[in-house]
């Protein structure tokens, strides 16, 4: 709950609010506010090219390879975590389990979706870690936000299946990401925007009421006059509301402006990504949510990065053997492009002061960039990419780790621990045996 909502719930008027803010018990904002911890999971598909992704050295002075080079400027705030393996077995092909078990750490239900050569499967049997954290945050008055979590997508196909869902609200409850920035905008700002739109047409409306009114008898005009008065009242109320909002909120509630008429098409992917990043950053700024997923395409995603002069689909390329130099090079460039998007998000957070007064947004947000596979052509779920940037978790920063070969459930436990919500197990307990990873905190 932010200051304005709080005051509104208390029924305090705008004028009274500015007076009350002087009282210690009602003072919000500034340094007195609690730190807002945040977490974002960014997903990109089809594995990486490990030799050009992972640092060769571990520890503080780690080296940065080609794919991670766009993130070099964040080296001090970054962690690369190698040796994390998605060991969940059961139904579903590698890509399905790769995405469906990634944040849930548990098997998929039996089902009828057949992929590759494995058995068919349905949805995940458990909640994902982002939704788990969201539920915990929403259960507490001081960490509750309007949405709790937001699920962004970029060019996720309009298809509900195991390959297109990463986040789960519970067993058999996949959460659909919103890929259309305008739809996300409506979700976030629809009401405000609609009210502004209403305010901006009311004058024209009132004018036309008068034109119509001229055609009427005195008696019929009475009803229309009453109606027009109502329109005027709405207009007045909106003015008061906006005045109060501007006075109380300032920058935190600024509504971002999206470029017009961008269709959800492959070639617009860079622009859509940027729009979604903008909406995400602004949502954190306005404290709409503290957890988010940012899913770029889907497991087995097929974007064609023509803006990089790559005409083949990503998934198709990812199956090519390493000996195919052309594909190999293209895959490096594709993954570098994903890294640029991560870097852009991190940069936007770094340059945005946190409204709670504790540094920048990035100082209080951890971006976790991950993938459904370690490497595309082998479909391995060993060495799944995990790169973290920012200070939302109580983790060390600016180091490269290699845990050699540990189940990824343990990293999920670490994330919970780092978020201040330690658990003994998460997902399938069989993979949680040794608890959270040591050394990260």
């Amino acid at each position, binding site marked *: 709950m932010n200051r304005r909502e709080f005051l509104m719930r208390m029924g305090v008027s705008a004028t009274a609010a500015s007076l009350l803010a002087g009282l210690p018990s009602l003072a919000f904002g500034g340094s007195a506010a609690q730190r807002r911890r945040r977490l974002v999971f960014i997903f990109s598909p089809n594995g990486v090219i490990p030799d050009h992704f992972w640092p060769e050295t571990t520890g503080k002075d780690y080296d940065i390879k080609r794919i991670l080079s766009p993130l070099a400027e964040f080296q001090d705030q970054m962690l690369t975590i190698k040796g994390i393996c998605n060991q969940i077995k059961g*139904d579903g092909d590698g890509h399905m389990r790769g995405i469906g078990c990634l944040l849930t750490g548990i098997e*998929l*239900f*039996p*089902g*009828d*979706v*057949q992929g590759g050569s494995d*058995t*068919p*499967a*349905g*949805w995940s049997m458990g909640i994902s870690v982002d939704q788990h954290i969201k539920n915990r945050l929403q259960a507490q008055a001081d960490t509750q936000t309007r949405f709790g979590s937001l699920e962004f997508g970029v060019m996720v196909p309009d*298809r*509900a*299946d*195991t390959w297109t869902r990463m986040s789960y609200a519970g*067993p*058999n409850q996949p959460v659909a990401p919103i890929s259309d920035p*305008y739809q996300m905008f*409506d979700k976030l700002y629809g009401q405000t925007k*609609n009210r502004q*739109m*209403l305010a*901006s*047409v009311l004058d*024209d*409306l009132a*004018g*036309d*009421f008068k*034109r*119509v*009114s001229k*055609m*009427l*008898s005195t*008696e*019929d005009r009475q*009803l*229309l006059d*009453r*109606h027009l008065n*109502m*329109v005027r*009242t*709405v207009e007045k109320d909106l003015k008061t509301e906006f005045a109060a909002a501007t006075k109380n909120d300032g920058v935190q509630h600024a509504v971002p402006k999206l470029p*017009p*008429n961008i269709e959800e098409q492959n070639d617009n992917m860079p622009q859509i990504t940027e729009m979604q990043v903008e909406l995400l950053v602004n949502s954190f700024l306005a404290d709409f949510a503290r957890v988010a997923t940012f899913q770029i395409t889907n497991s087995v995603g097929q974007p064609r990065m023509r803006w990089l002069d790559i005409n083949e689909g990503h998934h198709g390329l990812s199956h090519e053997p390493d000996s195919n130099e052309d594909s190999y090079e293209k895959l490096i460039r594709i993954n570098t492009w994903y890294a640029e998007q991560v870097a852009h998000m991190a940069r936007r957070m770094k340059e945005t002061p946190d409204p709670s007064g504790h540094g920048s947004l990035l100082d209080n947000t951890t971006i976790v960039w991950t993938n459904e596979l370690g490497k595309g052509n082998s479909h391995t779920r060993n060495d799944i990419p995990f790169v973290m940037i920012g200070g939302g978790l109580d983790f060390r920063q600016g180091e490269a780790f290699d845990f050699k070969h540990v189940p990824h459930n343990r990293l999920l436990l670490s994330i919970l621990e780092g978020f201040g919500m330690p658990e003994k197990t998460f997902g399938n307990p069989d993979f949680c045996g040794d608890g959270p990873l040591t050394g990260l905190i």
Partner: protein
Amino acid sequence: MPLGLANLPSRQRRRDGGDPPTAQPMAIFDFTLPGAGAVLAVALALLTAPTCAAESADPMARGKAIYVEQCATCHGAEGQGESGAYEAELVGDASVGELAAVIGDTMPEGEPELCVDQDAKAVAQYIHETFYSEAARLRNRPPQQQLSRLTAEQLQQSLADMYEHFFGSAWTEKKRGLSANYFNAGRWDKDKLKVERIDPAVDFDFGREAPVEGVTPDEFYIHWAGSLRVDHTGRYEIVVRSTCSFKLRFGHRDNTLINNHVQSEGKTEFRKALNLIAGRQYPLLIDFTQRKRKTEMPPANISLCWVPPGGVEEVIPPENLVPATMPNTFALQAKLPPDDESYGYARGTSVNRQWEDAVTQAALEFGVAAEKELWPQYKRKHRKDSNENRQRLRDFLAELIGVAFRQPIDEETRKIYIDKQLDAVDDDGQAIRRVCLLAINSPRFLYPTLDQQAPASNRVATRLALTLYDSLPSDEWLLKEIQKDQLNPEQPDAREHIREVATRMTNDARLHGKVMEMFFHWLDVDPSAEITKDQDKFEGFDRALVLDLRRSLERSLSDVFWSDASDYRQLFVGDRVWTNQRLNEFYGPAWDPEESHDAFAMVRSKPAPGERYGVLTHPMVMSHLSYYDTTSPIHRGVFLIRRVLGRTLRPPNEAFTPINPELHPDLTTRERVILQTGESKCQVCHEKINGLGFTLENFDAVGRYRTTEKDKPIDATGGYVSQDGTQVDFGSAEDLARYLAESEDAQRAFVEVVFEHFVKQPLAAYGSETAERLVKQFRESDFNMRRLIVEVAVTAAIHPHQQEKANESA
């Protein structure tokens, strides 16, 4: 200020005879039926309980006598003034007390001592109530057509038609069920189509067997397609249960309402709630797949169910499914506040903030649909048009607004509603939403009859669509009629042509929705109300049975209404009903189906002469007009006298609690009612009420036919004195039914109910000659209800608004 009384249902004024005018709305009985064994405190609710006539008549009569004797020579018999004496009209806003003081001190002029104290008070009261006060003047004014905004129903219907305009209108489809294609493949494959048929409903448990011959059980695909027909506006829950992969598309071919593309163990129930609108047909497509797999296959099943308003979950019955996939349509989800129905029909005569905000919500919602669904559709159709300077967008918006405003838009209107709004925003989607927000909030849309400046054909079509569909003209053929000015009343043979157009319009599901609403109102049955009965006495009368009863009543009404003769009299004397297995089991042999059938489907019953009289004695009606465990001859009598015969009744002198049957275990219901209403002050009305209500005593509290009560034979004798003073005696419900079928009182009442339901204006506002003509035409058509509705629509379409007449004469 009290509600204006000018537009009270005309029956109250016209037929009130000597009764003092009262502002009572129609049936105002509280039907709350309390729990088992509780004393039934059914309050015969009063708005303003007048004191007994005997007490109140006194001062009024005295006041009148004095007024006539001492005042009328100067002031006129009705206070209108007399030339040469006191010329001004005797009207004002003084209270009775103030008037009495003035009269006592000053009147009659020159001899004030002639009328003082109680006399002055009596005169004051008399003139105040008869013509002096504002309320009295409103009461005395002839009823008028009143400017109205769209009602909630009209707003929803109009938006649906504005939307359908771009996709094409739905048509009438006689067949029922959904068309089904069974494929011996995991997807649509023309060459592997094995069975093509109509399935009456979707409720299958194939198990591990093949669904049809020629299809392997381990991999198949079924495509069901058609539309869902909705008879009542309200909140519906669509429920699908399935163990297999399926998708349900609904309303719009691209709108996946339920997406279970992934079959996942344990996820077998899917629910979606939405607001749906009466008379609309929503395209509905199901893609059902049993997928081949290496692992163990679940048994295949699927059922398509719903929970209709006030109902329980049931498989969607065949009568609500049509095998044709209708064009995309739109159902408004924004909640609208209810309209004033105090005159017996919804009226859009009040404007308040709640309504204003709801309209804004509706406009925003429609704007999104216009942006996401209508605009792409328009673009597809006008691919070749130039979009320079956003011309295509302007054309699209002009077409949308033309339909919304029901007339061609002039330059100024176009500037305000389109050009100015497009200039304000660059994004096309934003611009569309903005235009919709403005247009739907506009008086040009919200007040359909504010169209004095529209061409005559537009005005006629607007009234036809408003009367028949609660909507606006949007069908292509009707718009063509307008364009060619073929509905202009000035044209030769205009009335005949307008009648043809109205007749063509009646053959439409939209009319069906409005007709059903009218019948339920006339029969005093709230389709979504719960009816609970004593389970010791009426075991099996549960919510599922009530829902079947509602289906049965709807089918029975629909059957009569849509038959060639559309004969109103069959509503009283028909001896068949629609039945199914559950109803048959509960109601016994009189509900035997005509021929064998599957358990769920509604079929026609065998005739049951002597036990059934049209829809009048349908259990849905009879159980509504009953208590928890006994019948209520009083409710039934009041219903007959007010609704069916169109007579007025004063409310009871005070609120009574019916005598608890347990206090008189030996008395029949009839005997108990006589005991309670025997006093002479009650008999003034109850003589009329009981005489009608008793004739239905053969139908118990759940509408089951009975011949005895408490081991005594049922006495169903009764009687009625008609408007013209004829005394009629009834030996049974049969006599009553035959009488009602032919009664002029009932016919007039029905004409008025139909008129006011469809036009939403008082019939009397159209002049007494209109009522006479409609009744005469109704009789001459052998009481054809569809033709009556056509005549009503033609009347409303051609009859000029009073104000216009006034303007013309001025």
